[in-house]
């Protein structure tokens, strides 16, 4: 049904209005004009009457503008910046555009329309609105024919047959040409592809799109980030709010305040770009836009800017990041270098000898690299997490948030770089591997101790460094393990602090001393290792200067001795066992064995886990700690009061200090309070303790085991103790009967004034004596004689000088009983021989010898000189008797002296020292200790036999007496005729003097208490003194 025609008297304007009202009602209600029940008409009349008769005021442009401004503010407050900006722009644009039937801008009609929309608005802040900016631009180009659209109605009206179906048909046609659907989004979605396609063609005509579909292309356009790195400033909308335009405002300010200011061309980037580049930089990406890498230095690009920060501010923030970026690059470079090398070696170095790769990183560096690498993997994971959250846009992420989040990591990077630069980078290029490795380990160790002492503040750093150290130390511990368990020092890159001297075979006498060179000797251990160092120096090592640089691997210092001992022992042991031949057993045992490093790791883990467990009941633990602290405090206070000091603060600090030493309680309270030991196991501040409890025990255990084995083998299979006994038997004359046979034969010869220096005679005598009781030793023993300078020989006591006993000690016992030892043994042997000789010569004197010798000349001369002699007879016999008596007395005195000396040496010195020595030998833990015990034993007997240079005057006196004894016996044998009274008197006075001197000296020494063993000698000599 056609619409009723408007009344004829209506003006054109009214007719138009009526038509629009109808259209409106139709549009809003959806009713047709032929709607039954007159609903349409009712609605129409309602509308018309409302338009005509209303009580609303005319539109006020001010009011509308205020409302528009208000909505803008509201959107800003609601942080809908995009919407706010669009709103502002659109309203301004609308007001400045003409309306279809109004030429001017900002007319009442404009405001009326805005007012209408405002009245109809329904909570604009709650809706999702996305502006499609491109659409508008295209709209311009496309020129929507708004006039035609409106004019169509006019034509219908002027036509003779104006009715609504026609109009509606037209509108349908329009819908065909113009896809204006009722759904708002439909309008945009349908159009965008074409528009963007056009745009693309305009912007980048050279690019050929393989994706033919416009949808895909537009999708790409929308989702691919604009290439900010190409330098062209991309257009992106951002808020007009003051805060987000700080850069521009500041630029403006500079421009206005400084007449010479020249604004520079800068690339605008967003904060997200900056954040992502930061993340990439830290994860080791080298080619970036904002950060640039020039010759290993990371710099910040100068011409970038973000809208909300001033240029300088951004730059200062980014420069900090760049510094960390550089650290990352430096470490990454190291990792690449080490890794690159090893892979090269693997690929084409498999067949080549390991020596070829001298420049190649050795195992310690590789291990360090590996630990760094692992650290970076976790670091990169963290960075990726952040980047993911940026991509997801779930959370607000700003540059400062990112930096804040990474702060602990950055601190760690700083520490890593510090360690790296001191431990690796600053080492001069020609440094040998051993120095490099030990320097790196030392640096790590020192860093741990340094941070450890700071306490809880750097717990994280300590744990990081500790993990690095644990990784880095792995090759070292493996080397140690290999050495102390298998006995071979496998170190192809020569990085271990101890090196094997190749030119000394194991089964050599010098093996124990000269086989290994300890490279880095620190001052403290220098004395301890002097022996081995000297020995190694003698083997021509050119490493002597390097050993003066104090770069000992500190963590091994407390157990270095054990390691060396264990290593050498093991190697020796292996060599000994090789001869025995039982490799299968050891191999099967070896399969079950855990390596030193594994044991160490397990111990550390269990220790740390122990710490973790204690965290669970940390409250009780804290309470316990507190209680014990209070107890300690009171104890400490009491102790301080003893010293008349009263200072509670001092007491507390003492208590804290001693709390860490768990044995404090035992020390101070007699052990009736149990200390909470678990508190000390929290990893902090206990790095050295950790080592002490986790690493050293294993080394110690292995040390005890293999040194014990070696000792056992030496004692059991190689009869070390028997050889030591043999030395004492023959050199120290402990096998008294055997040696008596030997030396008396010599003494007899001397007494008979026959030649005894003949080597064959000496050896025959020796073999005869020894062969009876010690047949196995007789083949090893030999004796030689060297003539000494004749000046000394004039004295009879030195007749024996030059006699040298030698005993062929088989390997490996000759490590202990060396030639040097035999020299000392020989010195003592000679002294003993001298004493024995003196004693023997005195012992064999017979009284009748002297008497018969005295009477002989009288009998001979008797008949001839009888008459002359008779008057003299009485006094002469008196004189002779007196003389003989004096001789007897002197002899007894001398005997007493010699016997005292003999007793002293044989029992007090040799026997008792020997017993001590035997005891110590049984307890010796390692070979080195045994050698030292032996040396100490030798030097003790050497000292106590007064052979030392320092007490040579005592020995001199004794020698004089012995000499006297020998002269005395000679004269005695020669008979009384050879005597003159004066000579007897001289002998007596000489002896007396010597005796006196010795007694005085010995008494003094005994009184001082410095030589307690001399007491018996002093006493016995004193007893022999004449009471006058």
């Amino acid at each position, binding site marked *: 049904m056609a619409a009723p025609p408007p009344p004829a008297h209506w003006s054109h304007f009214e007719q138009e209005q009526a038509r629009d009202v109808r259209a409106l009602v139709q549009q*809003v209600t959806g009713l047709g004009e032929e709607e039954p029940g007159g609903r349409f008409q009712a609605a129409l009349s309602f509308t018309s009457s409302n338009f005509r008769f209303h009580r609303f005021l005319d539109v006020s442009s001010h009011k509308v503008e205020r409302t528009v401004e208000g909505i803008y503010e509201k959107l800003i407050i609601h942080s809908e910046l995009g919407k706010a900006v669009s709103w502002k722009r659109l309203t301004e644009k609308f007001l400045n555009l003409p309306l279809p039937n109004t030429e001017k801008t900002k007319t009442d009609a404009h405001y009326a329309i805005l007012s209408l929309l405002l009245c109809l608005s329904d909570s604009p802040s709650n809706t999702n609105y996305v502006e499609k900016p491109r659409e508008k631009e295209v709209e311009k180009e496309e020129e929507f024919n708004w006039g035609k659209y409106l004019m169509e109605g006019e034509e219908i009206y002027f036509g003779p047959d104006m009715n609504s179906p026609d109009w509606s048909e037209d509108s349908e046609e329009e819908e065909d040409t113009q896809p204006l659907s009722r759904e708002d989004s439909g309008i945009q979605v349908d159009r965008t592809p074409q528009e963007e396609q056009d745009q693309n063609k305009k912007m980048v005509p050279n690019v050929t799109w393989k994706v033919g579909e416009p949808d895909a292309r537009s999708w790409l356009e929308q989702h691919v980030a604009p290439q900010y790195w190409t330098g062209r400033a991309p257009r992106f909308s951002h808020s007009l709010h003051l805060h987000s335009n700080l850069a521009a405002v500041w630029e403006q300010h500079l421009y206005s305040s400084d007449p010479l200011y020249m604004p520079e061309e800068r690339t605008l980037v967003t904060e997200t770009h900056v954040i992502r580049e930061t993340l990439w930089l830290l994860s080791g990406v080298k080619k970036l836009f904002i950060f640039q890498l020039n010759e290993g230095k990371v710099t910040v690009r100068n011409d970038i800017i973000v809208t909300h920060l001033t240029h300088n501010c951004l730059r200062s923030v980014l420069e900090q990041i760049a510094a960390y970026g550089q650290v990352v690059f430096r470490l990454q470079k190291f990792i690449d270098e080490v890794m690159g090398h090893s892979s090269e070696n693997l690929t084409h170095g498999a067949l080549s000898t390991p020596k070829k790769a001298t420049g190649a990183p050795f195992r310690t560096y590789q291990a360090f690299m590996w630990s760094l690498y692992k650290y970076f993997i976790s670091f990169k994971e963290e960075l990726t997490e952040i980047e993911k959250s940026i991509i997801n846009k779930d959370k607000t992420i700003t540059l400062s948030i990112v930096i804040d989040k990474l702060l602990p990591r950055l601190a760690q990077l700083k520490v890593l770089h510090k360690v790296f630069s001191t431990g690796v980078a600053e080492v001069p290029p020609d440094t040998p591997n051993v120095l490099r490795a030990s320097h790196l380990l030392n640096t790590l160790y020192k860093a741990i101790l340094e941070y450890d002492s700071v306490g809880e503040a750097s717990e994280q750093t300590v744990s990081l460094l500790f993990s690095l150290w644990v990784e880095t130390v792995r090759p070292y511990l493996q080397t140690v393990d290999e050495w102390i368990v298998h006995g071979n020092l496998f170190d192809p890159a020569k990085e271990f602090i101890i090196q094997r001297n190749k030119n000394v075979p194991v089964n050599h006498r010098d093996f124990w001393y000269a086989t290994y060179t300890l490279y880095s000797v620190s001052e403290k251990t220098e004395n301890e290792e002097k022996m081995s160092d000297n020995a190694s120096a003698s083997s021509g090592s050119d490493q002597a200067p390097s050993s003066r640089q104090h770069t000992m691997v500190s963590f091994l210092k407390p157990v270095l001795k054990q390691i060396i001992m264990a290593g050498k022992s093991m190697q020796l042991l292996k060599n000994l066992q090789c001869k025995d031949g039982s490799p299968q057993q050891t191999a099967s045992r070896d399969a079950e064995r855990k390596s030193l490093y594994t044991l160490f790791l397990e111990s550390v883990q269990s220790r740390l886990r122990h710490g973790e467990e204690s965290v669970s009941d940390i409250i009780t633990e804290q309470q316990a700690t507190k209680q014990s602290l209070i107890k300690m405090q009171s104890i400490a206070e009491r102790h301080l009061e003893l010293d008349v000091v009263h200072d509670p603060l001092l007491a507390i600090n003492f208590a804290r200090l001693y709390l860490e030493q768990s044995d404090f309680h035992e020390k101070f309270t007699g052990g009736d309070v149990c200390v909470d030991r678990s508190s000390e196991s929290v990893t902090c501040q206990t790095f050295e303790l950790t080592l002490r409890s986790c690493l050293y025990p294993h080394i110690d255990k292995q040390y005890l085991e293999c040194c014990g084995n070696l000792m056992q083998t030496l004692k059991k299979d190689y009869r070390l103790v028997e050889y030591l006994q043999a030395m004492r038997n023959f050199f120290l004359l402990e096998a008294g009967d055997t040696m008596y046979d030997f030396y008396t034969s010599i003494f007899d010869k001397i007494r008979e004034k026959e030649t005894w220096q003949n080597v064959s005679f000496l050896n025959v005598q020796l073999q005869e004596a020894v062969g009876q009781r010690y047949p196995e030793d007789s083949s090893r023993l030999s004796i030689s004689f060297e003539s000494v300078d004749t000046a000394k020989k004039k004295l009879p006591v030195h007749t024996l000088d030059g006699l040298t006993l030698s005993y062929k000690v088989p390997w490996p016992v000759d490590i202990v009983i060396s030639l040097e030892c035999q020299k000392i043994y020989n010195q003592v042997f000679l002294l003993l021989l001298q004493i024995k000789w003196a004693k023997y010569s005195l012992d064999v004197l017979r009284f009748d010898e002297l008497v018969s010798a005295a009477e002989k000349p009288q009998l001979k001369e008797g008949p001839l000189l009888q008459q002359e002699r008779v008057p003299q007879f009485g006094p002469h016999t008196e004189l002779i008797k007196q003389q003989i008596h004096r001789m007897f007395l002197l002899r007894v005195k001398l005997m007493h002296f010699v016997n005292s000396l003999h007793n002293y040496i044989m029992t007090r010195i040799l026997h008792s020292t020997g017993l001590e020595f035997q005891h110590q030998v049984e307890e010796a833990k390692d070979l080195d200790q045994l050698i030292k015990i032996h040396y100490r034993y030798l030097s003790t007997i050497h000292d106590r036999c007064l052979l030392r240079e320092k007490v040579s005057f005592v020995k001199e006196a004794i020698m004089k007496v012995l000499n006297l004894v020998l002269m005395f016996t000679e004269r005695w044998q020669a008979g009384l005729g050879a005597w003159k009274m004066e000579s007897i008197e001289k002998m007596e006075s000489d002896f007396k003097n010597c005796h006196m001197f010795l007694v005085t000296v010995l008494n003094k020494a005994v009184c001082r208490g410095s030589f307690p063993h001399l007491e018996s000698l002093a006493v016995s000599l004193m007893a022999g003194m004449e009471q006058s």
Partner: protein
Amino acid sequence: MEPEVLFEISRILNTGLDMETLSICVRLCEQGINPEALSSVIKELRKATEALKFFYFIFEVWEPELSTIYKAAENMTS
């Protein structure tokens, strides 16, 4: 004048007007219709339409169905 501009404004304000209605409103405003009156009319008409739809549902759809249910119930009881 770009109708898109006004339409965008309308979208921001969440007025619920479509393009066609908006263009009619523009014409009416230009003809001097008071915008507040116009807005109140549109709101009233919307309300009425909603109500109409409701009544239509009650009387045209729901009630006939109800009556058939009643009848079926009566048949069953009888």
